[in-house]
């Protein structure tokens, strides 16, 4: 794989065309992805999209029906989990109820037959890292949810894992604790120089934590990229609608336009919109396609009637949400949503102009 620097390292973890079905349900379909050394990698998607199954296959808890998994260039597809050396943090923490905090964290070290002094040292430092020093003699039942979660993390990092796997580890915490733990987690992984794969259905969480994210929908991997890339240039409707709010505009490319600048007619409202089309194959003539624009990119004005892609619209509803307000608009039957910082001057039923700037409009793969 060549890059600008002339050469790029092999990825640490590689999934190649991995599929897994449960009975007639195809949980994971032909997923390929690469995770690089030191990367915090996210698997994001709605529940039931196959992200947890993918993670479990990486961990070795599930075997792929087809496809292979490589780690440091070695095929680990059928390696049992205990021989992979990956730490995993479970959604319900999976702390051993019959063992105290120390023994929970020491579990993996004992499985590796380390000597007593080493075990004690490494348990102590793992507990220190998750800010639970001195909790070693506690029973796991005595701990709060947040503390149990930290013990689960300490247990996973104590084995100095080659890869750290997280299965929605924050979903059992309450909101304020979740954000706090989130930043601590990211900091900890970076400090230890670990590579992590993180499964979540929470877009905000994935964006805050991950260097790169794969979005999965219906068992398929739809798009992989940096958070900003995914947000600003979703390639598919499913990705666009899963990541944040979006205006979906059904439109048809006009046969009259022969230039690179595409000209589209919206099916609702019959407006003419212009935008740059880089890939001709994405927008065949006379076939309905989806255009999309984020609400925060929809501009409202009272005098911009001449700007490109300016439509006349009527304000239907204004929803106040603190720092921002959402304005619902009706442009001759085309329903749009705009996010504005100040809605003071706006009123319901007011007539105004909506500007869908051509460089903010995107064309989606169907």
């Amino acid at each position: 794989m060549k890059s600008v620097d002339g050469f790029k390292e092999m990825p640490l973890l590689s999934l190649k065309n991995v599929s897994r079905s449960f009975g007639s349900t195809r949980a994971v379909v032909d997923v390929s992805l690469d995770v690089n050394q030191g990367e915090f990698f996210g698997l994001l998607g709605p529940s039931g999209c196959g992200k947890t199954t993918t993670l479990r296959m990486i961990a070795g808890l599930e075997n792929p029906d087809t496809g292979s998994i490589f780690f440091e260039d070695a095929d680990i597809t059928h390696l049992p989990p205990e021989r992979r050396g990956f730490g995993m943090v479970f959604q319900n923490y999976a702390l051993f109820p019959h063992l105290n905090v120390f023994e929970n964290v020491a579990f993996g070290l004992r499985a590796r037959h380390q000597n007593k002094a080493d075990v004690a040292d490494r348990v102590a430092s793992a507990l220190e890292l998750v800010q639970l020093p001195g909790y070693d003699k506690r029973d796991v039942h005595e701990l709060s949810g947040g503390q149990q979660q930290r013990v689960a993390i300490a247990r996973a990092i104590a084995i100095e894992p080659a890869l750290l796997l997280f299965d929605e580890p924050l979903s059992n915490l309450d909101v304020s604790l979740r954000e706090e733990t989130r930043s601590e987690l990211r900091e900890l992984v970076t400090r230890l120089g670990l590579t992590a794969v993180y499964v979540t259905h929470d877009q905000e969480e994935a964006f805050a934590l991950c260097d790169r994210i794969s979005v999965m929908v219906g068992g398929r991997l739809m798009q992989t990229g940096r958070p900003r890339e995914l947000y600003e240039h979703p390639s598919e409707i499913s990705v666009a609608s899963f990541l944040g709010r979006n205006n979906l505009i059904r439109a048809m490319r006009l046969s009259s336009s022969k230039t690179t600048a595409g000209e589209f007619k919206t099916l609702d409202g019959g407006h003419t919109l212009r935008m740059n089309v880089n890939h001709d194959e994405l927008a065949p003539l006379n076939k309905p396609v989806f255009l999309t624009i984020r609400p925060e990119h929809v501009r409202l004005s009272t005098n911009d009637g001449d700007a490109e892609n300016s439509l006349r619209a009527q304000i239907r509803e204004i929803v106040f949400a603190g720092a921002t307000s959402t304005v619902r608009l009706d442009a001759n039957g085309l329903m749009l949503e705009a996010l504005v910082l100040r809605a003071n001057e706006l009123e319901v039923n007011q007539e105004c102009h909506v500007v869908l700037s051509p460089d903010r409009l995107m064309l989606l793969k169907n």
Partner: protein
Amino acid sequence: MKMDRAKRKIRLHQWRPVALLAVTAVVLIYGVVYPNLAVVITSLQRAGNWTLANYREVLSQGSAIEAIVSSLGLSAGTVLLCALVGVPLAFLFERFTFPGRRLFAALAALPLVLPPLVGTVAFIFLVGESGILAHSIQNLFGLENPPWRLRGWPALLLFHTYTMYPFFYVFTGAGLRRIDASLAEAARSLGASKSSVLRRVVLPQLTPSLLAAALLTFMTSMASFSAPLLFGGDVRVLTLEIFRARQRGDFVMAVTETVILAIISLAALIVFQRYEGTRRFAAAAMKGAPRRREIIASGGARVLATILAVVFALVLVLPVATLFLVSFAQEGSWTTQTLPSAYTLANYRRLFGDPLAAEVFFNSFTMSAIAAVAALLWSFCVVTLLRRREGARTFAGESWRRLLSLLVLVPWALPGTVVAVSVAEAYGRPGSLLGSFVLVGTFWILPAVYFLRFMPLVVRALQASMEQVDPTLEEAAGSLGARAWQRFVRVTLPLVWPGAVAGTLLAFVIALGEYVASVLVFVPANRPISIAIASELRDFNLGAAAAYGVVLIIIISISMAFAGRLERLRG
């Protein structure tokens, strides 16, 4: 006027828990505390003086020591064998899925619902020296004598394993289901091999379940009476020794041995309760446990597992099938043949035509119904007191509630022999708590004993139902203006009745086949089914004995099916 009503309300409010407490206390004092105290006192007295002479005398006799050692040895052996059979079966059927699995799983608990006497009789017909198995081997190989005699230790251990292995099977299975599957996965991801997961994660968490099963098996085996009586041979066990001592009129010996048996059983109960507690605790600490997917074994293992399931299912069904077969056998048609040579409905015709048989059924039905309904009504009192919110008004605190639930459990933990002997001792002569009324020798002794023996089942069933009712529902009803009785009738009762009735049915059918206590205190006026079976057996009316057993099993099956439906209704 308004003031009056308010005052009355307050008085009613205080009156209710006091009444509940009074009813509960009277039953426990008359039924549990006093009879048990009475046997202890009798065992410690001689001619009105306090002395240990009875114990010295009993313990100096070889037979008593032998009985204690035999009972303990038999129970220890039973626990070991039941564990060896029940635990692997539970692992096999809980962890894996294969053809035939459901067949066995559906039948696994069958021996538990078989009345002990009926089970014993069925066993004699199947594996006894003149039973089907022995005859078929004898005829197959042309042997002169039966290949074995169903007597003594091996016979008892075999029968106990057959009837009590379900404790281990059921408890281990439930324990395995409770273990969070992600724990094993976490252990694997931390580097533990499959065998090390079993050793370090699964077994430690299973220990409380295994101990509970062991204690339950131990207690049941200590109380076993029918099998030692019918094919124990020379094996002297405590229950049997107590029965024989009473038969020959040696009441002091009977009472003293009863106390010894009671102490052993209660010790087991106390340990059992502790482990049951920790089991619940561990389960409560779990959150969000995903279900374990059952692994489908393949190839040879699959065939082997299927064969195993079918064989075990057959083993479970065979004694009952034998009982059915023998119930249709013509009297005298089954001597040396493998199977009875002539079949008839005569046994059943006799059962339904004979006024004596009708009376026996009538007695058992009436007495069991009285006991079960009384247990249901009384358990509402107990469970109300045991509930945290209600109980808080009457009791000082947790320790009182624990005492109450312990007292309720005592008759359940005590062997039927002990319950019968202690009631007989307490109410066998005038001047007891009942004044000049002597309970022993009347019709009422058996309903009373049945009530005591099986009310813990009803209390537990009702308690389990009540625990599922959110206490805020009653509070909500209260806030809407419902009085205490309205809250009970309109909110609590509709939610708990299926569970309560299911528990009552269970108590009813178990009482229907009760033998151990009945044989000690029955009188001609209340001769129950089990006594009739035993006497038919003694007269070698095998077909008639079997027919009684079959009718009992049919009644039990119908009731259990009905109870199962009710349980589902609740869930």
